[in-house]
């Protein structure tokens, strides 16, 4: 729940920020001497090199900091940078209008689409209004309602995922947070229209998956997508949220891990130094990915989409099947007592 606490300037970015400050100072000089021009060229080279060095070795915990960066483009930014003519649709027709979930018609070049996405808010006031991107049940119900509308009129659905998790609160429980998320996955799995999901920042657990069942699932390079927040995991398995860094490593939730584990189809590369350094460039890559995926999906019959989507999620999971391996690893079915999975468990 500490999405808002990302301090201006991440620790590990300090060398970059310092160089950026010097570059700005030089750039502000109206008429630079040839020596200053040379300094600026040198500085830019150094900056690119430093940024590349730092960003090529980000730890999982640092990746989380980037994914939560206050300047990282949010759903509302993509709505203006990637799409045109966004026309917001409010409300779940049952309880209310959740500001943590945006939905509406939009144009992606010539394609008419329905966009659904978490919204975190930029200013403190906005952040409070949308609970830092943590949706309530009415947010999930709004999302599925608009997706069904899209299905009815043949519009593809685009989901932008960016949430620390579904909101943990009294009202959320009273109004069936579990049921809302479960029903979204259930309904999304059989929607007869193309669905493309992109994790643009934080993919926080069930709150993310509640709009995450798509024909294509992509992830921005420095996003993460996890079963639990690193702080939450550390609190349970390391007995203190202080160990979030270790939990972040253990959970294997960076984009490269997600691709390797077969959970996402594609990694959208971010500009040098992360999406927050260049939202325009990021948006243009997101747009390219969306257009390419949409073209592929529009070639497929709507009737067969649920079947291929089912097969896609059906394959997820890693386990051992071989009976002999199972005997060796987990104890025979007849013994009922594991003999201490000492063998190499990798299947």
């Amino acid at each position, binding site marked *: 729940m500490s999405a808002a606490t990302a301090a201006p300037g991440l620790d590990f970015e300090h060398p970059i920020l310092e160089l950026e400050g010097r570059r700005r100072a030089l750039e502000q000089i109206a008429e630079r001497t040839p020596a200053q021009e040379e300094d600026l060229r040198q500085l830019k080279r150094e900056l690119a090199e430093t940024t590349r060095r730092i960003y090529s070795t980000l730890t999982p915990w640092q990746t989380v900091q980037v994914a939560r960066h206050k300047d990282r483009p949010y759903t509302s930014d993509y709505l203006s940078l990637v799409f045109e003519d966004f026309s917001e649709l409010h409300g779940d027709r049952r309880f209310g209008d959740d500001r943590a979930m945006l939905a509406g018609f939009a144009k992606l070049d010539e394609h008419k689409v329905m966009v659904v996405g978490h919204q975190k808010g930029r200013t403190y006031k906005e952040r409070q209004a949308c609970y830092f991107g943590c949706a309530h049940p009415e947010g999930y119900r709004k999302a599925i309602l608009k997706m069904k509308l899209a299905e009815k009129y043949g519009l593809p659905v685009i989901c932008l995922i960016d949430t620390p998790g579904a909101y*943990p609160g009294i009202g959320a429980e009273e109004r069936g947070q579990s049921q809302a998320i*479960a029903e979204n996955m*259930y309904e999304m799995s059989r929607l007869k229209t193309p669905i493309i999901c992109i994790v643009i920042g934080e993919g926080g657990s069930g709150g993310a998956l509640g709009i995450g069942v798509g024909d294509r699932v992509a992830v921005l390079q420095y996003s993460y997508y996890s079963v639990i927040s690193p702080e939450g995991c550390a609190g349970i398995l390391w007995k203190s949220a202080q160990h979030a860094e270790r939990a972040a490593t*253990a959970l294997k939730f960076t984009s490269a891990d997600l691709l390797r584990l077969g959970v996402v189809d594609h990694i959208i590369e971010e500009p040098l130094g992360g999406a927050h350094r260049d939202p325009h460039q990021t948006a243009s890559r997101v747009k390219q990915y969306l257009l390419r995926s949409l073209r592929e999906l529009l070639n497929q019959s709507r009737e067969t989409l649920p079947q291929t989507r089912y097969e896609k*999620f059906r394959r997820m999971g890693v*386990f051992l*099947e071989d009976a002999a391996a199972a005997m060796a690893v987990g104890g025979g079915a007849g013994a009922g*007592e594991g003999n201490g999975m000492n063998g190499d468990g990798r299947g």
Partner: protein
Amino acid sequence: MFTRPFRPSKISLSFERLLFAKQPMTTRAPLMSKRPKRGVPEGLWQRCPGCGESIYWKEAEKLLNVCPKCEYHFYVSAQERIRHVLDEGTFEEWDTQLRTADPLEFVDASKSYKERMAIEQKKCGLTDAALTGGGMIRARRVAFGVTDSQFIMGSMGSVVGERLVRLIERATDESLALIIISGSGGGARMHEGILSLMQMAKVSAALARYDRAGGLFISVLTNPTMGGVAASFASLGDLVYAEPKALVGFAGPRTIKATIRLELPKGFQTSEFLLEHGFVDRIVSRSRLKSEIARAIDYCGK
């Protein structure tokens, strides 16, 4: 609590006999395993956490581990659930060969996931948190699944997800009614990371197909059913039944308290709370569960 004098059900009468019977098809450790069960008191007299009264444990045991004074429902294992709900000797376990592959090579503060699995397997006499298979309820054939809340908090990893999906697919193919009794304080299993999260989508998608094929799914919530289990199959029943006073919800009470910094209302996230807010069809005490399920199957013509 009981409006008529208690008569031990057939199930509890046959309990002793079952103990010495040759185990049909299943595979488990001895029925009364010697492992100490967390949540289950040992010894003759026990204090009930529900009412604080001292209760004679043998008496509670006869009531399927329910307090005779306040109807507090104690923990029961997956194996015991099968005896409570299915006709004697009819359970046939499916997909026993599935085992975790530890895809993240996960190690936490005190032990590796592999070590933890070995300990839990020994403690519970199960290979993973879910037990699935076919069986009969009052002579009607059903697909039956149960999660044991003591096996890594009843959490769902790849094996639990896969067993449930195979169960659901088989129920779809064979037009069987589907009963899943969930007990899970852990939700999606952290030790398998994002793969556990994806099991929620996988199982929910399988249920959507089962639904389209006209299947009847009865979900039974027991203490506790939380997180990713509550936010997937457990909430997707055509009928949702809950045992009395079970803790059921999405976020854990401690997380909520830490977030909103307010005291939680009394009875928050209990079965009764869910009933009041419209998310549970019936609260069914353990002794009546089998007959309630049989009745629902009767009504729905399966």
